[in-house]
């Protein structure tokens, strides 16, 4: 057994103990955390893909999510399309938007250094926010569908059922993505490009196409997640911003390219957040979970590097 495997086993053991204790103390917090954590993991996944495969830190991540939310909202309000059904057209529309932005801007900073990429994606983020503000103003908008407030009851135990969809979707997306990356030719190419782009190019993989595909897929996935979460949140120009920050924390915790780790990190941090929120008077400390973890991970990596 390698050192890493040993650490993972220890970590999983403590995680299991933590989950059991929380489940006994406050089962609601455990379920709320599992649901929200799955959503955080889903939203972080495209960011992890872009970072892991393309080595791009996309500061406009949350804004693409916001655009997806507004498109889904438009489809609901103007055409009466149920948000869950709208996930499909929103996926394709965001793929198109992603393709346009990739061709116009992103491909020009590939390999141009992280600072240029950060500045460019920050600029894209600002442009998207302002466009949304011009079209829809800053007033929050909502979609109400009765099934999003449904609940399941076991005796005195009542819990909302809609957000279990996040858990199911997270498991499905992570499994499908894993299958795609391992079992298909394109998936293996993506994997190879993520590992060693120069080597992949030498063996004949079309690296440019892989980058284009991964970028479009990542933005499109955000469209699906936006449509699914629409009935549960308010949308306004800065809706996506906090999800960006949480996604960065998750990616940092899971490690670059560790797709499976994102799910574990998301659920862990989601439960941690829900536990803090369940303690009367301490709800405001819940952000500490995410950003505390981010700081610890960065410090630990720096210490490791120094050694």
């Amino acid at each position, binding site marked *: 057994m390698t050192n890493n495997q040993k650490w993972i086993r220890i970590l999983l053991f403590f995680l299991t103990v933590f989950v059991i204790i929380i489940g006994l103390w406050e089962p*609601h*917090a455990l379920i*709320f955390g599992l649901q*929200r954590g799955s959503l955080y993991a889903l939203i972080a996944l495209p960011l992890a893909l872009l970072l892991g495969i393309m080595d791009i830190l996309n500061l406009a991540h949350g804004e693409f999510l916001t655009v997806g939310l507004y498109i889904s909202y438009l489809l609901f309000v103007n055409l009466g399309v149920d948000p869950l059904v709208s996930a499909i057209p929103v996926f394709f529309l965001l793929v198109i938007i992603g393709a346009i932005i990739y061709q116009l801007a992103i491909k020009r900073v590939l390999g141009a250094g992280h600072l240029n990429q950060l500045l460019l994606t920050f600029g894209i983020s600002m442009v998207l926010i302002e466009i949304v*503000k011009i079209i829809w*103003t*800053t*007033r*929050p*908008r*909502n979609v*109400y569908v*009765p099934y*999003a*407030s*449904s*609940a399941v009851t076991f005796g005195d135990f*009542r819990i*909302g059922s*809609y957000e279990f969809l996040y858990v199911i979707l997270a498991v499905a997306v992570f499994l499908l993505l894993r299958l795609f990356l391992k079992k298909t030719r394109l998936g293996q190419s993506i994997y190879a490009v993520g590992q060693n782009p120069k080597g992949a190019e030498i063996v004949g993989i079309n690296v440019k196409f892989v980058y284009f595909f991964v970028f479009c897929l990542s933005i499109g996935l955000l469209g699906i997640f936006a449509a699914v979460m629409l*009935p*549960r*949140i*308010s949308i*306004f120009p800065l*809706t996506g*911003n*906090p999800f960006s*920050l949480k996604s960065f924390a998750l990616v940092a915790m899971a490690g670059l390219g560790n797709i499976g780790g994102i799910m574990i990190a998301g659920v862990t941090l989601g439960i941690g957040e*829900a536990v803090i*929120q*369940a303690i*009367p*008077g301490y*709800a*405001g400390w*819940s*952000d500490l979970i995410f950003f505390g973890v981010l700081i610890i991970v960065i410090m630990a990596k720096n210490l490791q590097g120094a050694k």
Partner: protein
Amino acid sequence: MKKSLITVVLLASLILVVFANGVLAQDGPIKIGAVNPLGDVTGAQSTNAMELAVEEINAEGGLLGREVELIVIDSELRPEKGASAIERLATSDEVDFFVGGMASGVHMAQVPVLKRYEKITIWAGAASHQVENAVGADADWYFHLHPWDYQQGASYGYGWKDIAEQNPDIEIDKFFLAYEEGAFGTDSYQSYVEYFEDAQAGEGPYAGLMEGLEGVSFKSAATGGGDYRAMLRQAIDYDPDIFVWAGYDADAIPMLAQARELGFQPPLYVGAPPGWPANFGDSPLAENVVLYGMWAPSLNEVSPIAKHFWDGYIEMHGHEPATYFAPLGYTNIHFLAEGIKHAGTIEKEALIEALREIEYDTALGTTLSISPSRVISNQGFSEQKILQWQDGTQHVIWPFDVSTSEIVYPYDF
């Protein structure tokens, strides 16, 4: 001889120029400088309403025979922009009066600049008592229209007492306050704690009303939160008679949806955000939700001036006003105009006196008159209204003299 003639001609010309400038200045427009956040619905609609008021005044021949000109600068809800806007209006545009605006944080930065020029200022929004402290007791040129935060809280206490007295079925003893964890929410909670302490001592607006108080914070959707279930579960355990939440417009519908999901149904469900989301009234979740505010479109049924404002606004701008900052902005300009008419001059001392004397029927359904508040001597409104969503319409429940419907009790989804 020739030299002295030239001197005389030059002097005469100089006198003529000075005189002519004076006459022109007298004949020029009365300039009102407004600072509003134009990117926000409150500021945009307040500005629209100000434009309507100015158009009405000019259509009736202006003020003192002079046209009224409104110069608007966007504060962008940023303190430094708000402060520099005042500076620009004073120096570059040379306005006679300042009006506006909203957001206490922005106004805190504007107050020192306003103090530098000491022009007559009639400020519509910015309700934090910290603004009042910053303005101070000596600023006799400063008029403030919106009730201060402590006045709002007190007026709700009086309102609920009146409502409970009129409706014996309504029992309001246990209060639960859900507050967002930022400055707005924690200030609200602090006020409630003070009211509760006073009530326990048999004093203040909540005496005999508030017998229990529980406060729980939540992270607002506006600042990255949006999961209220932990807070709502604590509310369920407390089983309050009245549930009040102090957060932002982005929290309104998700909180209601999550309350429904958890089966939380307090007898009174009250929202106290500064604004409501677009089309909130159209949502089935809005039914019978109580809210605090200064105005509701249903006032058109009981107030001719409110109806006049409503019609004029739609005719001029092509959409309905959606926030009370619209009639407040309209009031802002008309109140100043009434003062000028009453004073017969724009001279500072006389106008301050006139503004203190007049009583003006506003589009908010309430008569505006000036009286001292805790610190300043020129405070306008001192109470808010208790409203309720009924069949997609905001109805005024209290004060009873402008009420448009009776309260629906208990809250039921």
